[in-house]
């Protein structure tokens, strides 16, 4: 019986059905299933399958992103119960991502967020045009393992540097690993501004993120 609903949960993520995933999460709780079981035996199996299918080239980006969205919808329903649960939730790591101030390009950053979610990270996406102050505030508030800074313009790249400097000034630099990305950025730029990680595309970003948080 429970196995049935777990299979449906996994399938809702594979199908990228966010509403269905949220409804199944609520239904699982109503049936008295534990929130961690709902996640681990249900939705996580789905997102792992999505990740595998993407890795094998059978799934494309929209399927990956929509799978991650369905996962997010389920976690949102489970969140209050997960927070109460003494076990807590196992995640690969906690990440905050955003496009730096002055830059409203976010498609690349959004893809990275989806791929990280699919890889088991708990991701908070702050969106585009995020001020240095907001990044600092969110790092203080959410205490992430990873901070991901995106920039698509040569004119906004310096704001990646400013954000890292602000982390230092606020005494937060040692608490969080910083990754940067975006079309005009390079590994050399990442090194120059003291970022911990760099990736040229979203797939590489997941590998780099896992390595930085010691998830692999």
């Amino acid at each position: 019986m429970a196995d049935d609903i777990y299979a449906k949960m996994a399938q809702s993520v594979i199908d990228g059905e966010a509403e269905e995933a949220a409804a199944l999460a609520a239904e699982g709780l109503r049936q008295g299933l534990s929130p961690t079981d709902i996640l681990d035996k249900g939705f996580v199996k789905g997102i792992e399958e999505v990740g595998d299918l993407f890795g094998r080239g059978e799934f494309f980006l929209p399927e990956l992103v929509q799978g991650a969205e369905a996962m997010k919808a389920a976690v949102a329903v489970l969140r209050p119960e997960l927070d109460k649960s003494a076990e807590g939730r196992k995640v690969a790591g906690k990440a905050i991502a955003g496009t730096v101030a002055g830059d409203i390009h976010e498609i690349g950053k959004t893809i990275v967020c989806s791929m990280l979610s699919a890889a088991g990270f708990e991701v908070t996406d702050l969106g585009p045009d995020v001020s240095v102050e907001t990044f600092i505030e969110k790092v203080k508030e959410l205490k992430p393992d990873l901070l991901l800074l995106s920039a698509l313009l040569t004119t906004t790249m310096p704001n990646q540097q400013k954000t890292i400097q602000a982390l230092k000034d606020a005494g937060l630099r040692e608490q969080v690993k910083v990754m940067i990305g975006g079309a005009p950025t390079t590994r050399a730029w990442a090194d120059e501004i003291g970022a911990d990680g760099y990736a040229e595309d979203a797939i590489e970003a997941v590998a780099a993120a896992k390595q930085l948080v010691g998830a692999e």
Partner: protein
Amino acid sequence: MVGAEEVQQIHEAALRLLDEVGFSVLDAEAQGIFAAHGARLDDHRVHLSAELVGEALATAPAGYTVAGRRPELDLHVGLDAPPVFGGASSPAFVIDTSGRRQPTLDDVRTAVALVQMSPNIAVHGVSLSPQDVSVERRARVVLHTHVVGSDKACAVSVTPPSELEAALRVEEILYGSDWHAHPRLWSIINTTSPLQLSAEAGQALVRLARLGQPVCVAACAMGGTTAPATLAGLLAVQHAEVLAGLVLTQLVRPGCPFLYGGTSSVSSMRSGALLMGAPEYWPLTEATVQLGHHVGLPVRAGGALTDAHAVDYQAGAESALGLAAALRAGAQFILHAAGILSSFNAYSPAKFVADDGLLGALLVAQRPLVVSDETLARDAVAAAGPGGTLLTQAHTRQHARDLEHPTLMNHEPYETWHALGRHDLAVVATERVTDILDRYSPPDDLDSVTRRQLDRYCLT
């Protein structure tokens, strides 16, 4: 090419998007301009009626002349004028024989010299951003390098606002305080798809329009990520964005020169990356030109664009197809007509000269096939007779030079080519760059007062 009925359907779909979904305008002043003229404002989203769009189309000119440094360098942009070509615009990297790196001021000088020496490229693209010049001085130093190194027009960066300010100041130094009495500036205002105009882009647009300077609003929507994965939907989004830019331009200054821009393509559905060498890009380019012409506007589209990272077969094929599509459809302005690698991200001097050669060949191919007594050459055929040779005919002698064109392509037979070192085109193009730079000398048309003012403003 898309059928006339389909073009109209896409146009109508765009009008519906503007009315029902709206266009997000992040600059408060631009929002106010839309609202003051009857656009519905819903937070930062403006909803435009078909009437507002129609009024803007009625005041936008079908063509205009951009004044050059001297009258013979004036460039006409219009439905009845030949296309204008621009060089690679704002790439983040340089790729040369040593690999990929960040641009330096020397690279800017090279790019400027190559455009100055080009037989086809009339407008410099927005400059490389030299990383060996401080951020505070960079825009001014780049402008100086362009103005001193070439008398050809230069597309200027209009964001951030400080870069536009620098460009306006340089115009004033060159042409006096009423420099803006004529259209002079080349620039690109990019939308942020889907259906969005950034605050900086909005500010730049309003500023340029107030000065009566040509406004080119260009979309680079990405099918599957920032626009629908289906080409019709993608074009409707692009068309809506450009029309919204047109409306703002014409509200600020009715009659302001406007260029309909689009280089939208599709995203990789595996990585999300923008693909400028995708086979969808070429019909999209044609349709972009058709949609602009459908509403009576001159169009900027196409380019020697490729996803390749080296001057190789892929780069050549994709670039040729990207250029040919824009030429065939009749684009008025083709920015990125030479020098781009890595899907807009990189500039290559060798690719620039290779593309310039390609462009020359395509322009020959574009020539109308003239049918007349002279070109039918009946007398020459009769004189040669069946089985004879045309080489002995005066007609052939008179037309021999019509068939000779400057080219980098190999037309030598195998053994000659082998003896010359078996070079592929990338090597030949690299050698040609050196040769062109050796022959290059900057123009000397600036008077000493202007030059001093320019030096003082740009270099201190």
